[in-house]
């Protein structure tokens, strides 16, 4: 048992981290090379069109106009209209429960492991550096919250018609891989079942997840941000001319 622990908690950790980092770099590289195509978007120019000189971002005129626009946006009539627009067009308005569940799920998924006390102790032991830790009560609660969101996703996969339509066995496996580190970490922390076995399973589950990120549907962690950066004017620098 001890030897298994040494192997799983030693070389395998570095291996999975290596796959995770190298794979992420590989995917980012792919996105910016010939694999993703740059679209040329033709710009329509009316005949006789001359580009107006810019009034500048910080000129007095520009600033007063902007303040007036913001005031108008928040005026009483507009608040009602804005609310209706939000309900109709924003994903938080269309699917409030699902959107909040997925937001909370992902925040817990990414943040919790960084601040788990045991993780930072092990990091400190191995490298002599670590992040600060949050209280174990807090990380434990976040784990429970994540598991509940995971259960909600499972419910959705089973019972919501449109989700069922595109669900395959692969989706259940991936959902399981995503929550397994948390399930096993929770069981280890509460000493449910044999602690040693649970910790080994936990480490294995964590490593599996890390390895899976660049090359399975978890790659959305990378593409989500790359893509968002390239969408025209959606809080980004992009011109919207890159797709794959």
């Amino acid at each position, binding site marked *: 048992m001890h030897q298994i622990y040494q192997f799983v908690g030693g070389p395998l950790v570095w291996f999975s981290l290596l796959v995770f980092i190298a794979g992420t770099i590989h995917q980012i590289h792919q996105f910016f090379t010939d694999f993703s195509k740059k679209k040329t978007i033709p710009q329509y120019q009316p005949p006789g069109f001359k580009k107006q000189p810019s009034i500048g971002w910080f000129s007095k005129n520009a600033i007063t106009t902007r303040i007036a626009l913001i005031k108008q946006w928040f005026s009483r009539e507009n608040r009602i209209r804005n609310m209706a627009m939000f309900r109709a067009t924003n994903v938080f308005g269309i699917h409030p429960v699902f959107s909040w569940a997925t937001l909370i799920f992902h925040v817990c998924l990414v943040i919790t492991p960084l601040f788990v006390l045991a993780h930072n102790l092990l990091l400190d032991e191995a490298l002599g550096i670590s992040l600060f830790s949050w209280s174990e009560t807090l990380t434990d609660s976040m784990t429970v919250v994540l598991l509940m969101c995971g259960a909600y996703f499972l419910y959705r996969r089973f019972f919501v018609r449109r989700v069922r339509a595109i669900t395959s066995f692969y989706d259940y496996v991936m959902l399981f891989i995503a929550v397994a580190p948390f399930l096993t970490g929770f069981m280890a922390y509460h000493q449910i079942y044999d602690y040693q076995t649970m910790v080994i399973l936990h480490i294995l589950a964590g490593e599996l997840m890390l390895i899976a990120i660049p090359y399975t549907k978890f790659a*959305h962690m990378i593409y989500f941000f790359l893509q968002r950066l390239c969408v025209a004017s959606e809080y980004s620098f992009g011109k919207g001319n890159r797709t794959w």
Partner: protein
Amino acid sequence: MTEQKSIEINPKTIQSLLDDKKAQIQTALNVCAHCTLCAESCFLFMTRDQDPKYMPSYKFINSIGTLYKKKARIDLDTLNTIKDIVWKDCVLCTRCYCPMGIDIPAMIAHARKICRSQGVVHEFDNA
């Protein structure tokens, strides 16, 4: 229909057309989280009682996805099903939006191209 039966499928053409966009198809199928968030962005989904078969992700997974998985081993029946999906259920208006950035219309358009290469096309005058 009798004419269609005589169509010979040419696996080589299908394969080479798939290879043309291999990386894009692979990534699209891989990255799709099967989250169904793209559903509301398709007007056909919204106006057809939210029938899942009009969901953009459903359409590209069951057209280009099937082609990609079966590679050249596809039979005429499957090709005909794909034909119905890519011509009858999607108008390629390119309005669908995927938060992961999957270019769904490009995938469906490519499935149309592959069908076309095999002579399996939607007959508008018989519709």
